[in-house]
């Protein structure tokens, strides 16, 4: 009963393979671009791959393995592009060779998420309180410093369980960059980077892991990208900015932070714009970049890559707000287009 069916299936499959192979010439084969990196923008890049494949027939395969791993894969040239929210260090750029370019795609906010039974969203956090919680100096939810900023919240006398990233992460890079700016003790004791020596905290894998830990364990405080907090409906807190306002993380407050930073964005776009000056800015946000080499080895793939990135900074931006990422402002788009026009393959510029 089964035998004839399996014979038929095998025949059909081999026929399909032979016809498929015979029908496509190298010029007609769809181009596939592979990338790896940050979990931060993964929801957006997924959406972009779907849309771009439908529009242009170019397949984009992005693996969200964390910014640190993405940078390593990019340096090892095992992927066509990398994704990171923590820019490469000078040492990494030197080791990578070639001319690595950081192309900003969108910006996102990193928010403090928590799970306290009986307490809703919108708890207020000051910078020093956040730093001291992550340093292990504030250990209980009903600490006087937390109560002072949240007089109406019913904070329990429970230990704060900290959740952080176990893997190398650009979300971490943005978070610890902010903590280093607001806490001298954090800067000297722990420092910055995609991985640090955490004084306290359970480790989760990816934004998903930290979100899972916070959702499942009461009295936990962690940090995730805004999209993860909102889509998973995890309560998240407000952070006080330099002007003294407690700001709710949102698209608009992230965009304002980015606009404020436009003046100081360097030519290579490697900048953290955490803790900026200005009203109504959310202080913990950052770019997410796509890494490409300025000199592409393969002209066909190189052209597909820069075409995709051009589409991403122009048409792709409209997919960002529904997924809770802040699109980059027009002035920056113009600069990015200029950078993309410097990308060459075999000596020839790829974009006309």
């Amino acid at each position: 009963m089964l035998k004839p069916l399996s014979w038929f299936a095998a025949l059909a499959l081999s026929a399909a393979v032979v016809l498929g192979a015979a029908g496509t010439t190298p010029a007609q084969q769809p181009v596939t671009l592979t990338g790896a990196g940050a979990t931060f923008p993964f929801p957006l890049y997924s959406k972009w791959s779907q849309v771009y494949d439908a529009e242009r027939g170019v397949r984009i395969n992005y693996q969200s393995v964390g910014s640190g791993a993405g940078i390593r894969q990019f340096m090892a040239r095992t992927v066509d592009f990398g994704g990171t929210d923590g820019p490469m260090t000078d040492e990494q750029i030197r080791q990578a060779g070639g001319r690595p370019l950081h192309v900003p795609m969108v910006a996102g906010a990193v928010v403090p998420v928590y799970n306290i039974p009986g307490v809703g969203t919108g708890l207020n956090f000051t910078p020093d309180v956040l730093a001291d919680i992550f340093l292990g100096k504030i250990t209980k939810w009903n600490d006087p410093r937390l109560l002072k900023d949240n007089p109406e919240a019913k904070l329990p006398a429970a230990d704060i369980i900290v959740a952080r990233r176990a893997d190398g992460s650009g979300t971490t890079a943005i978070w610890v960059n902010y903590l280093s700016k607001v806490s001298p003790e954090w800067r000297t004791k722990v420092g910055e980077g995609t991985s640090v020596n955490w004084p306290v905290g359970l480790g989760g894998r990816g934004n998903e892991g930290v979100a899972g830990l916070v959702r499942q364990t009461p009295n936990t405080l962690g940090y995730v990208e805004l999209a993860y907090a909102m889509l998973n409906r995890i309560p998240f807190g407000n952070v006080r900015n330099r002007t003294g306002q407690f700001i709710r993380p949102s698209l608009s407050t992230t965009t304002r932070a980015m606009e404020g930073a436009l003046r100081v964005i360097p030519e290579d776009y490697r900048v953290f714009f955490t803790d900026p000056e200005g009203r109504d800015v959310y202080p913990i946000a950052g770019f997410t970049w796509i890494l490409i080499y300025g000199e592409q080895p393969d002209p066909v793939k190189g052209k597909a890559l820069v075409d995709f990135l051009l589409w991403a900074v122009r048409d792709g931006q409209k997919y960002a707000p529904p997924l809770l990422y802040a699109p980059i402002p027009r002035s920056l788009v113009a600069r990015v287009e200029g950078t993309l026009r410097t990308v060459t393959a075999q000596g020839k510029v790829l974009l006309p």
Partner: protein
Amino acid sequence: MAGVVLVIMAAMLAALTVGAWPAIRKFGPAFLATSTWDPVAGQFGALPFVYGTLVSSAVALALAVPLGLGVAIFLAELAPGWLRRPVGLLVELLAAIPSVVYGLWGIFVLAPWVRTTLSPPLKATLGFLPLFEGPPLGIGMLTAGLILAIMVVPFIVAVSTEVMRAVPTSQREAALSLGATLWETTRTAVIPYARSGIAGAIFLSLARALGETMAVTMVIGNIPQIRASLFAPGYTIAAVIANEFGEAGGITLAALVFAGLVLFLVTLLVNLVARLLVARMAAGPGLIRE
């Protein structure tokens, strides 16, 4: 075939040693005795990971061996045929579930259950022991041991059942004819005869538990610390390699490979001890010793 396996293992050992060489040269045997793991400062010590690996596997075996043997005895001796086959199949299906699915189930179902249902009675009755001190978070060594036990039980059950069923009926009949009850028959005629196979199954499970990665890293908390309490979070060698390998370079990479080499050697050692034990115990069925 055996030659090929030996060659592959020797090649793996060589590759691991070469990869770990910078760390071996820098830290030496002190690597296994120190506890700092600091990628920023370049200081690495694998003691918390070795501890975590051994303790989580020990908890897993302590839970899985009695349970697995009990199920195997039931399936081999007591269960009627219409029950043995489905139950046996279901237990073996446990082994087919991917590790990462166990991890997801662990973080969303098992960890909250451990925190709310299993830990409070344990804490109330045995909380005075250092083994159960500290607050139960649900994420920690106990949950990791539990998940490993569930993953390892199918091996013990499958192998032990087969080995026990392979005991010749004449042995059972001999015991029964001397007036033994069913349990006494099992205890004196079947299990001693099947001892070497059961020991083999246990060591196979230990080897699996030592190397298990995804399920463990999702429920153990990933904190490199050494605590006596089962409620405390920890870290295992396999978990730290999985978490940090992606972005490691230079001395960090060498330290991770060194930790991997340690795991490789520990697993080899466990298997070697298992072989010796099995060889000694296979010196004949229980009642008659050579």
